[in-house]
């Protein structure tokens, strides 16, 4: 391609369009020796993005540290996440100190193995609660993301591919959830389900906020996927598959879905970040994780009461949450650049 429009005349904007792979080289057919699939190309691009990889590493580190909390935290801190120790004492620098003073002030960070980050009002070890809370937050975020992906993809596929009745039912449903502010919807449903439970799931189960968040955000994936599927179903390869006698389910899942996969994958980190944030909001408003279980959201809410004297109570879970969301976001940016640089994403809370 001689007339490569790579360099725009508007050099001032600093925009350089990379020459499009595939068109120039591959046109002649098979000059590249090995077969390079789209996934491998994305992997290559991903590997070059050091920042994104570094944040992925950070995220994995946070996950490992939190998920493995039950394995080691009790050995170090000698206390569980929900174990009260209001009248107990702890040795700090050779001195016995009240975990919770007589006037109710909990001990601040000791930076020793017991009460490393201090205690909360109930004499529970904040460091342990931070780790367990992280575990809860990540579990909710993760389960919610799985629900978002499954529901959103199903929404999008059925609505976009089958059209007709499926679209007539699913699309308004998606619009309904989508046009409702997530926080308010989450609090309404969360408050109701926390008191009422959800079928066999008890009201204080962490799967209730996970379920709520998953359902609330599923249209945020479902809508773009539907658009993508609508575009894909007009492609001739879908007709080709039909002409070969493939059934609609098989076409949806083996022909169409793989083409939407990169969009879905781009959404995974974005949805995870949003799920983590929404969990924090719901827990802050009392409609998320139920006591005595902790999550980063409840820890932030509890810490707010001590922001005056011991801001670390609120700041440390806050920083953990921000770091996690940030690492997921940065990695997600990298992933999008690698897979689908043009993905348009609208997310809000």
């Amino acid at each position, binding site marked *: 391609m001689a007339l490569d*429009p790579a360099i*725009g*005349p*508007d050099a*001032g*904007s*600093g*925009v350089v*369009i990379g020459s499009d792979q595939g068109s120039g080289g591959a046109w002649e057919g098979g000059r590249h020796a090995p077969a390079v699939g789209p996934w491998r190309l994305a992997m290559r691009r991903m590997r070059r993005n050091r920042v994104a990889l570094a944040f992925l590493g950070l995220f994995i580190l946070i996950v490992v540290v939190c998920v493995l909390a039950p394995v080691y935290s009790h050995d170090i801190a000698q206390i569980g996440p929900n174990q009260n120790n209001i009248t107990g004492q702890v040795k700090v620098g050779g001195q016995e100190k009240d975990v919770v003073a007589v006037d109710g002030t909990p001990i601040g960070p000791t930076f020793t193995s017991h009460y490393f980050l201090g205690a909360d009002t109930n004499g529970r070890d904040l460091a342990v609660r931070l780790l367990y809370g992280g575990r809860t937050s990540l579990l909710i975020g993760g389960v919610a993301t799985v629900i978002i992906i499954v529901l959103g993809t199903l929404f999008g596929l059925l609505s976009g591919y089958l059209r007709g009745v499926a679209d007539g039912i699913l699309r*308004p449903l998606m*619009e*309904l959830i989508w*046009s*409702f*502010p997530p*926080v*308010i919807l989450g*609090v*309404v*449903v969360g*408050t*109701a*389900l926390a*008191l*009422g*439970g*959800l079928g066999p799931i008890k009201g204080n189960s962490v799967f209730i906020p996970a379920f709520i968040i998953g359902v609330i955000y599923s249209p945020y994936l479902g809508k773009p996927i539907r658009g993508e599927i609508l575009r894909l179903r007009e492609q001739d390869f879908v007709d080709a598959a039909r002409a070969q006698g493939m059934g609609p389910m098989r076409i949806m899942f083996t022909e169409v879905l793989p083409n939407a996969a990169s969009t879905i994958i781009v959404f995974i980190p974005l949805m995870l*970040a949003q799920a983590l*944030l929404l969990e*924090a*909001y719901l827990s*802050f*408003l*009392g*409609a998320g994780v139920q006591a005595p279980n902790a999550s980063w*959201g409840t820890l*932030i*809410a509890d810490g*707010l009461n001590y*922001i*005056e004297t011991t*801001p670390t109570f*609120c*700041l440390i879970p*806050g920083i953990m*949450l*921000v770091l996690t*969301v*940030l690492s997921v*976001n*940065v990695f997600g*940016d990298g992933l999008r650049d690698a897979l689908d640089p*043009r993905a*348009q*994403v*609208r*997310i*809000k*809370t």
Partner: protein
Amino acid sequence: MARFAVRRALSALALLFATSVVVFGAFEVIPSYNPAQAIAGRNATPTTVAEVSRKFGFDKPVYTQYVNTMKLVFTGKVIDYQDDLNVVDQFRKRFPVTLSLVLPAGILWFGMAVVLGSVSAMRAGRLTDRVVMVAAIVGVSIPVVLLAALLLYFFAYKLTWFPNTGYHGLSNPVQWAYHLILPWIALAVLNIGFYSRVLRSGLLDMANQDFVRTARAKGLSRGQVFRRHMLRNSLMPIITMFGLDFATAIGGAALITEAVFNLPGIGQYEASSIGNLDVPPILVGAILTAFFVVLFGALIDILYGLLDPRIRLTG
């Protein structure tokens, strides 16, 4: 245009109906849910509860209750369970507070996003761009709760530059603004981050379009090309986002900011009603939100038509 209006009105009605059903039905899952008990109070005898239940019609089937409540909502006569107050009046009373919070915050977040997104795209790849984009991604990663708490801690408690919390009426505009600066910032930061990121990527896409190159080639200055061709087209996605975000925020979605800064807006009213399982205010709030969402959706579509003559209004 008639078709557009009718279609939108219909979708509004459908949305209103659906939201009201969801809200009304949500609390039915609570096994011991009995608003009569809440109305009758802590020390009520069973006969009193039964009396209240009869008076409010809680002994009727759910759909009858729904129909009756909706009738009251649309005649503006609906009262809440907790305070026996006219809910519509309460919303009317609190709406100025929410609008005082959301309208300037909306202008702030939209304006800042346009400025930052444009600067970032114009300087793509340079230090300015990097700084703005890092700030933006951090901005979208901070939960509003934490940001609001931090602002309150540093600027109100530590430095005492700004007042503690609370709302001050517009009768004294200086006090009004002084009390609202922190809430505005808390509400705006997240959206500034989102919008500027979307705008930047839109502008960069636009820079590669033929018509932009053509515009440059015919001798327009960089600024002219940017304003007339690139920005105008790239604004559409964030205008869409703004429509929905603004609509939901004035419908009560700014409840966390209102809660932390103790602004007696409709978000806080809705939040406390949710906590008290007080259905009528939640219902009215949801309907209000749905109404704003549809209204702003329509406004944005009309605006689209003005920005881009190719787009025709469809239902």
